[in-house]
């Protein structure tokens, strides 16, 4: 699973490393400048900065008139991501089990149906969703956009969890049933622990997807009170009157930090998602 493959002794490393360096260097440079530009003063035509400043980060302690408060926005984004993730995890872990193991009527239909839903890009549905949300009064609310995002992420989650459940041996469930456990108990205390890698991978995937989501909150929850970071960030580009590119970069960096932390801590689980659920 997380094992690193041993480098083969059949070829030299340096040509590969050189090629990779040449390709990645421009990207790396851009990241370096992104960081540098947020903490330095620089003339527009200069290559090197001429002084240090924290001025570009002032959005952290002062709220520009007409814009949302950054901390409010951050909390919104966290709420949005974690709620979406929880919803996706709870529903997928149960639905995946049902589709993988239980003899439900029209199982094939559900499996195919879920797949078809997954094929729809969310943008194509957005007008319909907008109308629906407005009719039921959830437009411009976090709950509405959370429900929509979770619903759109669910097909992938369900299929993924089904794949993980498929690899759990039947005998474990038979043993559990014979030992006297109810079917729910078997799922909860015997099968669920076997798919923990899948839960972790799906959780992280879903959190990152929520954190990065832009279109849905932009259209369905644009108001200052319910704004998320991606919408807040886009606001800088849309604002023609007083644009501040360095502050834009600082917000971008701020937006990136949780993703980097999550990735550094959990990347081995994320790798799992592409392992097809095979347990290592």
């Amino acid at each position, binding site marked *: 699973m997380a094992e690193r493959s041993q480098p083969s002794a059949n070829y030299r490393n340096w040509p590969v490393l050189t090629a990779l360096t040449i390709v990645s260097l421009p990207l790396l440079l851009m990241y370096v400048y992104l960081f540098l530009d947020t903490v330095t003063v620089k003339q527009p035509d200069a290559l090197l900065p001429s002084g240090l400043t924290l001025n570009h980060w002032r959005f952290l302690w002062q709220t520009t008139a007409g814009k949302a408060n950054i901390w409010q926005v951050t909390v919104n984004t966290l709420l949005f991501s974690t709620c979406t993730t929880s919803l996706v995890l709870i529903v997928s872990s149960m639905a995946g089990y049902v589709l993988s193991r239980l003899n439900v009527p029209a199982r094939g239909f559900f499996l195919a149906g879920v797949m078809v839903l997954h094929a729809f890009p969310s943008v194509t549905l957005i007008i319909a969703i907008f109308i629906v949300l407005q009719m039921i009064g959830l437009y411009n609310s976090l709950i509405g956009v959370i429900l929509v995002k979770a619903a759109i992420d669910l097909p992938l989650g369900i299929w993924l969890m089904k794949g993980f459940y498929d690899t759990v041996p039947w*005998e474990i469930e038979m*043993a559990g*049933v014979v*030992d006297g*456990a109810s079917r729910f108990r078997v799922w909860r205390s015997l099968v669920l622990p*076997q798919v923990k890698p899948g839960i972790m991978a799906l959780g992280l995937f879903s959190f990152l997807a929520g954190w990065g989501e832009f279109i849905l909150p932009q259209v369905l929850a644009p108001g200052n009170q319910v704004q998320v970071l991606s919408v807040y960030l886009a606001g800088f580009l849309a604002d023609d009157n007083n644009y501040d590119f360095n502050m834009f970069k600082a917000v971008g960096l701020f937006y990136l930090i949780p993703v980097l932390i999550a990735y550094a801590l959990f990347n081995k689980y994320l790798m799992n998602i592409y392992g097809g659920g095979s347990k290592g």
Partner: protein
Amino acid sequence: MRILLDNFSKSFGSTKVIENMKLEVGSGEMLALLGPSGCGKSTTLFAVCGIHRPTGGRILFGDRDVTDLPSQMRNVGVVFQSYALYPHMTVAENIGFPLKVKGVNAADIRKEVERISGLVQIGNLMERRPAQLSGGQQQRVALARALIRKPDVLLLDEPLANLDAKLRLEMRSEIRRIQRETGITAILVTHDQVEAMSMCDRIAIMKEGEIVQIATPADMYSDPRTAFVAGFLGNPPITFLRGVMKDGTFAMPESEIRVPVSIQAAEGTKLTLGVRPEHFNPAGDIAVSGKVTFAETQGRENLYDVRLAGGSLLRSIQPVRNDITVGDEVRWAIDSKGVFVFDEEGRRL
């Protein structure tokens, strides 16, 4: 506890696996369901433990009809071929799980787990996880988990199939010892006749969903009801000669062999003669010539295949001797008192 299958039938869709099976396992008895793969022995076992619902008939534990009871309510212990230990739990948690489900308090569970793990001799492994155990140890844990609830019946599904030869020998006697000590009724499913004969009080041989014969291992070996049973028991296996009834003897058309048989059959009836390897050697009474086509030494005994003039094959097992090699012409004899005569359909005559 006595287990009774009364007219038990099971089909999957339109495939009938078992029809109207009758089987009684006495209290405290260990019975083997023996048969080739696909004969329905595992299906029977899963029906007894409630994982498969029977399509017809009744299943009784003692006097209690459990036919429609779900697995959870049946009080059976099962040892699966793959052991099916819970990978995320320690050995102690694995063994204690059936009691935990029942809601027994932690102190009592600990006491029971200790007692049962002493019985199967794994007291020193309690904190390990299944992945850290050898095959034999996993087997013992699975046994302990199956036994801790004091089940009405212990079901063993090919329990030795995943072990290496030496461990298999050890666990064979271990399982039998534990079964005797607990006095539990047990059903062993296996396709290995050695396991069935060495571990069980009685054997039920199955073929295509039917029980062909039920008997003690010794009776079944010396008195098989059909050619199938005779062919299934015994290692090295029995060999068969084809021939006809002629003047009160079994006669092979392409050779001079005549074996007197004490059966009533019309002249010319087609017969099959079963000769076990121990009944074909220099000491018998019906001399037969042939050519040795295969010789194998097993240390204490030698095994020979002898091809007769007509192409039929006889097998012989004898104390080690060094004077015979492949290609030699030999003239050994069949012990006419040890042979079995079957009719064309394989029924014993």
